[in-house]
């Protein structure tokens, strides 16, 4: 069987090694004295995140510190990753509230549907990206943790650009 050989057509006349070497040196020197630094000094400086950024969740609270959630069950219903566990119950005043509200942030795909569907504006995606933990179990955020978090919440869409253009 015939084999096709790829013949490299090198521009022999232009392949000056010395010129290339010196050109490289000049290039690196130029960068050294006139650097285009793009590094962000991360812990001190932060790139601003988009108002639409969808990070780990936050549960907003009412003025008396209780979660706004009424346990309606829409977020576990709409959740495509099935990562929200909700058991509704009643508090002392007979109000509906979540007995158990857990979000498995490992399963979460951060689609933001839960925030979009929430009729009480209780559950929100956070504008937040520092999520390191020491164990898998601590990625299951319970109600206490969700309400205790203070990072800013996502707007899901940019008010100045609602069409996302």
């Amino acid at each position: 069987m015939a084999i096709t050989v790829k013949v490299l057509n090198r521009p022999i006349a232009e392949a000056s090694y010395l010129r290339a070497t010196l050109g490289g040196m000049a290039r690196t020197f130029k960068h050294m004295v006139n650097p285009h630094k793009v590094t962000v000094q991360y812990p001190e400086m932060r790139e601003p995140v988009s108002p639409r950024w969808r990070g780990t969740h936050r549960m907003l609270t009412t003025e008396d510190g209780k979660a706004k959630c009424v346990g309606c069950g829409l977020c576990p219903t709409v959740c495509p990753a099935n990562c929200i566990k909700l058991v509704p119950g009643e508090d002392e005043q007979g109000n509906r509230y979540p007995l158990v509200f857990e979000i498995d942030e490992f399963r979460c795909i951060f689609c933001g549907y839960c925030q979009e569907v929430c009729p009480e504006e209780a559950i929100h995606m956070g504008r937040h990206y520092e999520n390191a933990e020491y164990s898998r179990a601590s990625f299951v955020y319970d109600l206490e943790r969700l309400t205790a978090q203070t990072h800013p919440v996502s707007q899901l869409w940019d008010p100045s650009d609602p069409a996302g253009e």
Partner: protein
Amino acid sequence: MIQAVFSHGGVIDPQTPIEDFWPFTILTIVKMVVVFTVYMVGVALLTFAERKISAWIQDRIGPNRVLWKGFGQVLADGVKNFMKEETYPEAAYKALFILAPMLAFVPAMVTWAVIPFASPLPTRWGLMSMAVADLPVGFLFTLAISSLGVYGIVLAGWSSNNKYALLGGLRSSAQMISYEIAMGMSTVCVLLLAGNVNLNSIVEQQATQGWNVVLLSVAFLVFFVATYAETNRLPFDMPEAESELIAGYHTEYSAMKFSMFPISEYANMVTASALTSLLFFGGWDIPFTTWDNVPPWTTLKTIVTLGVFAIKVIFFLFTFMWIRWTLPRFRYDQLMSLGWKVMLPAILAYVVIIAGTLLGLDAAGIARSSRAFTGILFGLNLACVGVLLFVLDRGRLLSPAQSRLKSAELSRLRQVASRSTLAPVTGD
């Protein structure tokens, strides 16, 4: 006691070398301590400089978190290296495994003994030479000792009992030997001109005749390239080519023993930079003036020349780093090809040319210190460099593995390629 040691019966001319035993010994010890300290601190700072310069070249910021502007990084690294676990491969030859890092480090250190880093300093006991040991055989000593450096690397590679380490060590020995010849030959030219192996004499010779980089350009180029190979710096860091050999000869090393190898590498760099400036850039000589080269020696002269020497050395150190972060690594066959097929013939021819020229000029009665002498040599060198670079360009001599096709052959192959396709071929 001290008084007794330093008291001297007669009046001593500060412009004559120290002759008394005690002052000489004690001042030498002081010089050793000072030089060692400055040297080691310099090496430590060099690692920091390397990281910073590489960062700048790559548009990064580099280490900047420890202490002021990241200068504490040096300390942090040192502490880290001391605290880390020393590991010994089970199959390693333990004695040599431990010895190897020291063998790599010591020669780099010792070479510095003979390097004069400033003009002599007048003291009340006499004129103190600004080299730790101003040996009459100065330059030969450096050549001899720097050759020993390869032992550390070869032994490290061998005693690790690791095939990658062994390959690294073997490459290192081959590379060192190949380039040492070219390096030695290039210094022959310097010796021809200076007529002396004492390094201070070489500085004096350049002060009067002009720097050797102008008079012996080809020798400088060869020496310059050879120092890179001798110090295992990119583009010649074949012994530790990480893409092929993991980490080469120090694959199995950890903690401070590992750290000794980079330290010796940087020490070698400093030595090589110092030698380059001594042999070809006038050492501590200040160009375009003879104020610094003639007695009477003063403290001011010493300080100024020391500064000039430092600037020269730092410039070459920077060049080491600049080149490292610009050029890619050679292929091993290219490395050998460059050493044996290009540099050795070129420098051999050049030695003959220089020797012949010197003979001719001397016979023609042109004084060595005259402007005509310098001018003629300069013109000759220009021509030599031009020829050399023209031949070297396009890398033909460096890439024997790359076959060059004649245009007729090329078009024939293209025709074949256009006729054959990857579609099913019948009857073949």
